[in-house]
């Protein structure tokens, strides 16, 4: 019983030094004047960047990355070359900023957005964490609560992880609110439609709810998410209903991103996410024609009543719209094989092998094809 006051006393003693105000970055030149404490954070962040670059986790599409970077540069022209955006090969709805100006946006989040103004909302918010040194300020807060830092280090979570956690899982409520405000101002200044900021929140909030997501999420947990939607609604109400959405440019630049995310979702059995993205016909129309194949596969995996015939329809749709895309033939062939429609299955699997002679699943398909042939002769 006596240990609690002791720890509390220690905490108060250690937190006695109030942190000095932190001036935000206003240009690339300010980078040269950062404090030693901030330099240490930069070093940690650069180590993270190096590890990411060495790993297989970055989405390698220079055109898409350049496009996302160009949106960032439009929002923060004075920090061109300092704030660098990279796309993470992950289907999660997340984005995060490091204290050195590295911004990471996940493929899943990028793929779910509808236009450039929504992307600018995400980027504007994340870059504000950098310009207003939220990493440093969060670390100061953590230091102030040193009793907890001590306790957490005892149970095996080092302080550096507290920083990483705040970057990836969200900063304090006040810092997030500040990033919302600054990001929104940048969005308006760059000429984007302010109303899209709320839509991007609502879109992702609805998706998170529909999928019952428990993973790290850009807009954090539900009560805070709702609060932030309301904050944005208030900000939007003060602005004229003008500005550009950049929908056409966004859809053209992110075609590959959206297809790659469908592939990632499929490979991780995230069929619910695919169905949610594609069952809305207006959104399906925004995807490349191969997307219907992914919808078919997602329906097959869900396997609810009526899904098989819907999947068949989706595969046929994909074949009609993208006749040289081989996987649709294999998927439809396997569906007919299960229905014991040997002739149609054989034709489709044969077409698949013809279009994709070096497919990674060639051995399976050859085996199925041979079995169908044997059954056909009986």
């Amino acid at each position, binding site marked *: 019983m006596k240990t609690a006051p002791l720890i509390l006393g220690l905490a108060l003693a250690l937190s006695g030094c109030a942190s000095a105000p932190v001036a935000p970055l206003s240009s690339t030149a300010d980078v040269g004047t950062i404090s030693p404490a901030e330099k240490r954070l930069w070093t940690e962040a650069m180590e993270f960047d190096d590890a990411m670059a060495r790993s297989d986790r970055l989405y390698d599409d220079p055109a898409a990355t350049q496009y996302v970077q160009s949106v960032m540069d439009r929002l923060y022209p004075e920090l061109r070359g300092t704030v660098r955006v990279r796309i993470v090969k992950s289907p999660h709805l997340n984005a995060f900023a490091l204290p050195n100006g590295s911004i990471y946006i996940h493929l899943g989040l990028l793929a779910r957005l509808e236009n450039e103004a929504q992307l600018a909302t995400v980027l504007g918010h994340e870059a504000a964490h950098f310009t207003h040194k939220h990493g440093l300020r969060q670390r100061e807060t953590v230091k102030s609560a040193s009793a907890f830092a001590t306790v957490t280090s005892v149970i095996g979570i080092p302080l550096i992880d507290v920083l990483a956690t705040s970057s990836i899982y969200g900063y304090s409520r006040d810092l997030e609110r500040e990033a919302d405000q600054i990001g929104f101002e940048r969005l308006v200044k760059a000429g984007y439609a302010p109303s899209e900021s709320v839509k991007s929140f609502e879109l992702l909030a609805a998706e998170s709810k529909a999928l019952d997501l428990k993973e790290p999420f850009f807009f954090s947990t539900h009560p805070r998410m709702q609060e932030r939607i309301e904050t944005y609604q208030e900000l939007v109400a003060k602005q004229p209903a003008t500005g550009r959405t950049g929908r056409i440019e966004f859809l053209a630049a992110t075609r590959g991103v959206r297809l790659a995310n469908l592939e990632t979702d499929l*490979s*991780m059995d995230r069929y619910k996410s695919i169905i949610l993205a594609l069952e809305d016909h207006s959104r399906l129309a925004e995807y490349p024609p191969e997307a219907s194949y992914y919808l078919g596969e997602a329906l097959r995996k869900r396997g609810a009543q009526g899904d098989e015939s819907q999947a068949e329809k989706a595969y046929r749709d994909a074949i009609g719209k993208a006749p040289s895309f081989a996987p649709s033939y294999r998927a439809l062939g396997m569906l007919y094989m299960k229905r014991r429609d040997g002739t149609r299955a054989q034709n489709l699997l044969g077409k698949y092998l013809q279009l994709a002679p070096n497919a990674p699943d060639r051995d*399976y398909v050859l085996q199925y094809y041979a079995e169908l042939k044997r059954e056909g002769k009986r």
Partner: protein
Amino acid sequence: MRNQIMRCASLLAVVAVAMAGCVPVVWQRVEANNRIEQNRAFTVELPEGWMRYAPVNGSLNVSTNKGEHVVKVTRVMITRDGPNLQRINVMRLDSKDAFPRIERGYSDGMLPSEAAELYIADIKATSTLENLTVLKNAPYSIAGKQGFEVHVKYKTEKGLAYERLTYGFGDAGGFYLLSLDAPSVYFFPLHREAFNRMVTSFRLGTTKA
């Protein structure tokens, strides 16, 4: 006050010991007289000189994005120099728990390629495996059942490159997996032959586990 704390600590220690006793942990050296692992689910020949671990009440702790849960398994694990250097697992899971990390089961009529697809998704959902790359995914017949052979490489959280070779199949009795995990350098190629001999010796049990 001090006595109370001591009594409480003693009680906790007794409970901990009692609870530990409920989970038999048995490591045995594989000798000529115990090299055949035979249980209700399967029979398999183990390489002599390795260490075997066959918990009586087998279970796997699985982490999903909805939290931790426990899956019942019939399993034997062997290692020669320690599980971090090489481990071979042979296990049977209930069909409903075939792919526990993605909370999916194996169902009758599932094609081997579909089972392999779910198996890969399941291992991708394992948070401790980084940079997972599929090197091979092909059909394979084990104990007369059509299944799959999946060979992947990955990195551990500490950055060490590993490979895993898995043979898997399902039948009405459950879902079966045989896998070798070892560091890519030296150990994986070294133990592949011993693993393949085990796979060849694998037979299904006469009764359902």
